[in-house]
């Protein structure tokens, strides 16, 4: 019995060590290597020294595409999730679509978008295709909130004469408000680092932080500049995270 307990404790300890090692090597160390490489190296031509305006343009384009995509996706996901309350056929289609798209390789989607949106204004093409790629993530979060609304509540509201738009405004929106905010925030954070869509759908005419990192790494070979840009990207995410937490705590206090 004692030997079995020792064996079990060893296994538990080994699993903790394994997860700690994997987290350290494949999450924390890469982040540290990227950030330290980025902030401790003096600026080089092509990096920050090119001028704040270039960096500002990169940041604003990245924010425009990611926030725009998150807003479009949240609206579409809300409408689609609300519709699942009224139509079982649509609910089946939407759940299947969410699962399939969540696990569809983004490169395949890029391939399709690049041919479908080739003559659309680049910023619009990149934003709408980013919205499509991040939609399954936000869609699942919002759908989980809608699934928790008792169907009796919706049926009661409808039988008392509430229009679908009223049901959406008075019953669905208040119930999924938390999921909506979380989905919007996660999608905007997730879309911030995209580089495949701006590269291939925007045909290089839309330069975001992600595409700039890819270009300076894989084409120019300037890893220092890439690390600097990655540091800016992470910094932007941290600012967004702090801002989001601030808004949440401010609302909680009120």
């Amino acid at each position, binding site marked *: 019995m004692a030997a079995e307990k020792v064996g079990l404790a060893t296994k538990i300890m080994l699993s903790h060590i394994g997860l700690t090692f994997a987290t350290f090597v494949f999450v924390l160390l890469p982040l540290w290597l990227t950030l330290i490489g980025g902030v401790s190296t003096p600026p080089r031509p092509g990096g920050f020294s090119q001028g704040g305006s270039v960096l500002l343009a990169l940041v604003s384009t990245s924010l425009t595409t990611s926030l725009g995509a998150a807003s479009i996706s949240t609206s579409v996901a809300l409408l689609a999730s609300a519709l699942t309350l009224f139509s079982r056929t649509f609910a089946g289609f939407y759940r299947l679509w969410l699962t399939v798209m969540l*696990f569809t*390789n983004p490169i395949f989607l890029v391939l399709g978008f690049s*041919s479908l949106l080739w003559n659309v204004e680049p910023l619009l093409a990149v934003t709408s295709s980013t919205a499509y790629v991040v939609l399954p993530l936000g869609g699942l979060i919002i759908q989980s909130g809608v699934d928790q609304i008792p169907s009796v509540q919706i049926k009661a509201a409808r039988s008392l004469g509430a229009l679908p738009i009223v049901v959406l405004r008075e019953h669905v929106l208040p119930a999924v408000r938390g999921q909506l905010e979380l989905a919007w925030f996660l999608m905007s954070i997730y879309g911030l680092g995209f580089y495949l869509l701006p590269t291939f759908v925007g045909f290089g005419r839309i330069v975001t932080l992600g595409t700039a990192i890819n270009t300076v790494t894989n084409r120019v070979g300037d890893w220092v500049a890439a690390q600097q840009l990655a540091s800016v990207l992470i910094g932007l995410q941290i600012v967004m995270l702090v801002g989001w937490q601030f808004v949440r705590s401010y609302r909680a206090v009120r």
Partner: protein
Amino acid sequence: MSMLKKALAIVLIVILGGPVFAIGLLSLSPSKGMDFFSRPEQASFQWWAALYVDHSWAIAAVTSVNIAILSAALAMICVVPVAVYWRLTGARLSRALLGLSSLAFFVPPVVLAIGIYKIVLAFNLFDTALGLSLAHLSITIPVVGFIFSERLKNSSNAGFLVARALGASPAAATMTWLSASHRASLTAAAAAAFMGSMSEATLTIFLSDTRVTTIARRALSGISQDVDPSGYAAMMAWVGIVSLVYICAGQIKYSNRKG
């Protein structure tokens, strides 16, 4: 359903399914490029045939599956015992470790790729299947951690306590509890990790070159080097496979419940 709701459903189906449908049509292109056909009789299966004949797709698929299996298995080995220990004992260290391991979910893959590239290079694992499998742990660990610990959090550990009360050892009681109550969540976590690794693109592009060709790498070379519409056929095949798996899993779940 009223007309308005029907109209909304149609609009949403067009928005959501339109791009996939269009890619499906493009995969039947009769020309050598990315063109739609004007008449149904012009549709051609040449790109589906190319997908079948071109062995690079098959090799890429096998490599991707191998990488995904190894990465998902390693993630399960790392995460499941820690999550179970946390659920049974409430250990804060285990909870903190699970939370820390899911940090990668919030970091853009392009940022992680730069750091992992340096590590992989230092251990001579660049452009190897093992290197990619290990790198994919940054995707598969958060996926397993999120799905499995979320299910554990919302479940009862009564099965474990009953087994212990009946004299089972902690290990045997845990195994009994997991196999009785959490087989579905274990399967879901493993499947999601596998699919997450299969659909990962950014790390793959940064960490592989010519020796290891995954599906993502093969599709990318199809876009960047020349226009290769067999990628459309590949996408439609992938969408078909995932849909089929989803529908079959749903049917099995439904018949189990009915049974």
